[in-house]
């Protein structure tokens, strides 16, 4: 044992002086080396949410009335009732820092981790999505990072047999030294199959199943995820976990069989903080104690120390709580699937988490002190000194295209710009067909999957964010991300139900960043209340910065909606020539933070488009009703790049052109990024009924023109052949990344 505070290496493990002092108070003595390591990972920012907790409470406090939440925030993922006795669970999580150090494995294990979170709820994972952000597309490091991350997301998800149904890829200089890799997983179960991460029942056995424990990912949550990058980052590579999707696949099938046969009473995945987290959380939530014999944990390397064993983040492992009489059956199922399973301990009535190593107790702590009673900080925050100047620097003075030729040139330039160009180079590397339930995937606005074979019920999912908007106004930016995801789900014909989020920010120790975070969470909580969609869970990723420079504040928001009948889903591309094209919603002169200002002038300043949440709700109601009555053949939301980009995308999906006539300033009509708008198409016979619905919901409508031909025509301004648009739109990513 060590003597004297300074002799324990708590600072190197990421603990502050007062945190260390608190551990000593809790224990009434100095912690053992193993205990200290456990506190350091469990009290890390990543695991404890110590800087974000006070803000995240708003998601609960302001939550709208809802009866669809079967499991709310606080578990591994929220569970939403979607009808017919079916429930879905979904969550997005970051794996930003590991993906910079080791792009392939970082991204792969990001997918693996979120999939296990979903499995832990008792659900069969049925789809994944990914939201990715990188530096400029022509940055020297982009090819390594984008190529590695995309291959990692695909390599893991494809091998796991999960369709990738959507997401986003964004390029901005602020992410060059700190890419964002956010992965979402969706799972489905019957109501009665929900599992909880609880260790209950004294004498029940603790079974570790899945991969052996090795030296990978030691201290990943504290060393990597909870500190800022500096020049030594490459030496942190051993902190990155290494994934084996084949093992995860058999672990999934094995666990689903265990759930089906009722053989486990509680289950928890091993992710960040490994065994430290899984044992302390299950014991704490079960109100029990636990005795674990670390000597029984199967190791890849026999020379591992207890500290390494209990903090290893080796992938593809689960912790199951099993009645003694069921142990043989559990081991039998595991053997059948070729999954290693070992009884490593049992549930006790001590309310202590005790860990034995070579016959000696090396850990004896109250489990809640690790899992639930970590430090909470109300960190100082202040509106950044440059925020007013940034907002005053609007886009109003930027030169705008005037002639038809200039408008056409602008449209082309945007369609081929890194953030608006076709994502096919990325999405072709993802399996979107496996499991046979994919109804819509990229390039449609949301991913839509049928949940089970014997029902037409399905869900739609979209994942969106806009760091530039959030930089200009984090409160509005978070709401705009929410509104876009909500709109994307709505255009597919689905009814938005619930929200998940991944909040990517710089260092919480910087008051400017903390202000961004506080504003964004407040905006998102208010927005969810106003749109009537509760937050079911999510993830916070801090310390996304290189040196003193933080990334753009990037709240990424996932919205889930339900379709009672997936046959009524509405695609985002034109489906036939001769349809009437209409714009729903109102367009304002809103260009601050727009893709146009960024691409053509490199400008970021002013205030983002106004979030119009009541209008979003009305628009959503129109889209759902129109879909239910089979009135619209296509619906595509307007967001980055405005109406011009929306029409380009809708045309290129099917190769059907479009001719429109624009009222007012054609530049504003084509490129403004006003929120709460969508383009829909319908047959002549359905126009009157559609207009009735639109009027009933008090939504503005503009008749733009018709689909058809092989060009994008704006009457009196320009005609661009689809071939030209396609070449421009589809060549950008391959040119830079292949």
């Amino acid at each position, binding site marked *: 044992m060590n003597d004297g505070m300074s002799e324990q290496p708590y600072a190197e493990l990421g603990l502050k002086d007062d945190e260390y002092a608190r551990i000593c108070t809790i224990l009434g003595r100095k912690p053992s080396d193993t205990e200290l390591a456990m506190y350091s990972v469990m009290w890390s920012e990543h695991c404890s949410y110590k800087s974000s907790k006070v803000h995240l409470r708003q998601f609960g406090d302001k939550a709208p009335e809802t009866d669809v939440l079967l499991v709310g925030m606080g578990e591994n993922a929220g569970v939403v009732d979607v009808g017919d006795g079916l429930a879905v669970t979904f969550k997005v999580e970051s794996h930003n820092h590991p993906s910079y150090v080791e792009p392939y494995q970082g991204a792969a294990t990001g997918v693996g981790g979120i999939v296990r979170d979903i499995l832990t709820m008792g659900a069969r994972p049925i789809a994944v999505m990914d939201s990715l952000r990188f530096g400029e597309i022509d940055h020297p490091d982009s090819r390594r990072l984008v190529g590695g991350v995309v291959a990692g997301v695909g390599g893991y998800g494809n091998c796991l047999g999960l369709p990738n149904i959507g997401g986003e890829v964004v390029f901005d200089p602020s992410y060059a030294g700190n890419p964002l890799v956010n992965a979402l997983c969706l799972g489905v179960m019957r109501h009665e199959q929900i599992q909880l991460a609880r260790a209950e029942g004294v004498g029940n056995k603790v079974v570790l199943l899945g991969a052996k424990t090795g030296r990978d990912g030691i201290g990943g949550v504290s060393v990597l995820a909870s500190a800022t990058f500096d020049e030594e980052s490459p030496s942190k590579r051993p902190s990155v976990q290494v994934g084996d999707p084949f093992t995860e696949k*058999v672990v999934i099938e094995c666990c689903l069989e265990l759930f089906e046969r009722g053989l486990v009473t509680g289950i928890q995945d091993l992710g960040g903080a490994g065994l430290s987290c899984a044992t302390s959380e299950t014991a704490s939530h079960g109100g029990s104690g636990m005795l674990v014999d670390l000597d029984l944990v199967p190791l890849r390397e026999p020379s591992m120390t207890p500290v390494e064993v209990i903090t290893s983040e080796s992938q593809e492992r689960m912790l199951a709580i099993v009645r003694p009489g069921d142990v043989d059956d559990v081991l039998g199922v595991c053997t059948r699937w070729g999954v290693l399973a070992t009884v490593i301990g049992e549930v006790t009535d001590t309310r202590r988490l005790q860990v034995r190593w070579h016959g000696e107790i090396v850990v004896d702590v109250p489990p809640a002190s690790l899992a639930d009673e970590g430090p909470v900080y109300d960190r100082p925050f202040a509106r950044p000194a440059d925020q007013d100047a940034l907002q005053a620097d609007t886009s109003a003075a930027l030169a705008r295209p005037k002639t038809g030729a200039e408008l056409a040139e602008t449209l082309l330039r945007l369609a081929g710009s890194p953030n608006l160009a076709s994502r096919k180079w990325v999405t072709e590397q993802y399996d979107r067909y496996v499991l046979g339930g994919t109804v819509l995937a990229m390039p449609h606005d949301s991913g839509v999957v049928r949940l089970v074979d014997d029902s037409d019920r399905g869900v739609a999912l979209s994942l969106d964010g806009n760091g530039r908007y959030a930089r200009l106004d984090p409160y509005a930016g978070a709401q705009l991300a929410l509104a876009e995801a909500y709109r994307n789900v709505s255009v597919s014909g689905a009814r938005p139900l619930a929200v998940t989020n991944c909040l990517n920010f710089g260092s919480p120790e910087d008051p400017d960043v903390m202000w961004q975070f506080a504003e964004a969470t407040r905006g998102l909580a208010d927005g969810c209340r106003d749109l009537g969609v509760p937050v079911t869970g999510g993830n916070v990723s801090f310390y996304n910065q290189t040196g003193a420079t933080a990334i753009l504040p990037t709240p990424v928001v996932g919205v889930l909606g339900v379709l009672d009948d997936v046959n009524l889903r509405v695609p985002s591309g034109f489906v036939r020539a001769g349809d009437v094209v209409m714009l729903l919603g109102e367009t304002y002169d809103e260009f601050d933070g727009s893709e146009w200002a960024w691409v053509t002038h490199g400008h970021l300043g002013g205030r983002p488009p106004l979030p119009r949440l009541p209008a979003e709700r009305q628009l959503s109601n129109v889209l759902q009703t129109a879909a239910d009555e089979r009135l619209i053949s296509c619906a595509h939301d307007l967001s980055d790049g405005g109406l011009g980009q929306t029409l380009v995308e809708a045309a290129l999906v099917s190769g059907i052109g479009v001719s429109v006539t624009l009222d007012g300033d054609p530049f504003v009509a084509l490129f403004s990024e006003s929120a709460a708008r969508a383009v829909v198409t319908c047959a002549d016979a359905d126009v009157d009924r559609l207009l009735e619905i639109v009027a009933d919901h008090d939504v503005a409508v503009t008749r733009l023109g018709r689909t058809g031909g092989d060009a994008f025509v704006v009457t009196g301004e320009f005609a661009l052949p689809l071939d030209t648009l396609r070449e421009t739109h589809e060549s950008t990513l391959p040119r830079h990344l292949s």
Partner: protein
Amino acid sequence: MTARIGVITFPGSLDDRDALRAARLAGAEPVSLWHGDHDLRGVDAVVLPGGFSYGDYLRAGAIASFAPIMAEVVAAAGAGLPVLGICNGFQVLCEAGLLPGALIRNAGLHFVCRDQRLRVESADTAWTSEYAAGAEIVVPVKNGEGRYVADESTLDQLEATGRVAFRYVGGNPNGALRDIAGIRNEAGNVVGLMPHPEHAIDPLTGPSADGLGMFVSVLKSFAAA
């Protein structure tokens, strides 16, 4: 009596449930088969599904070709049982020696998932009789190791004996030699292809329903027998 189509699940199989669904939709009774059994449960035809059996460690399909059930598949195929290998299943059939050649890493080195046009080159197998020879169909292709290769004399022999079953049209997604997407054995009961007919059984969830024809073909071959 309803014909029974068996689908083998290896550890790491992914499209097994999809193949079972396609068999059911075609009108067959789907039967799950387990890699570790020496038992085909009396099925009338067998599908080896897509996926990454045993993680595709060593070589794609290499370990699965030694699974206990493969001894039964090889014997039954020799006796005329219809066998279809899709993607990883095709790789397993090649590794097991039921079909010649091999599947290696895609020419572009990336995994590729796209809706692929195929030409049906051989319409007189147990799995392709529903199609007209020369018909074009659209079926998803999705793989990282789908590039069909064999030595020149094997390729010439396949061509000369009409044993190329499917060819890529409108772009070769993986650099397969002579655009070969799928091949058959001489008797026509064993067919292997990289694209996924089980993902093209319903326009709601696939690019077409063109793939269903393979499962219907095998059902009709029983009716005719």
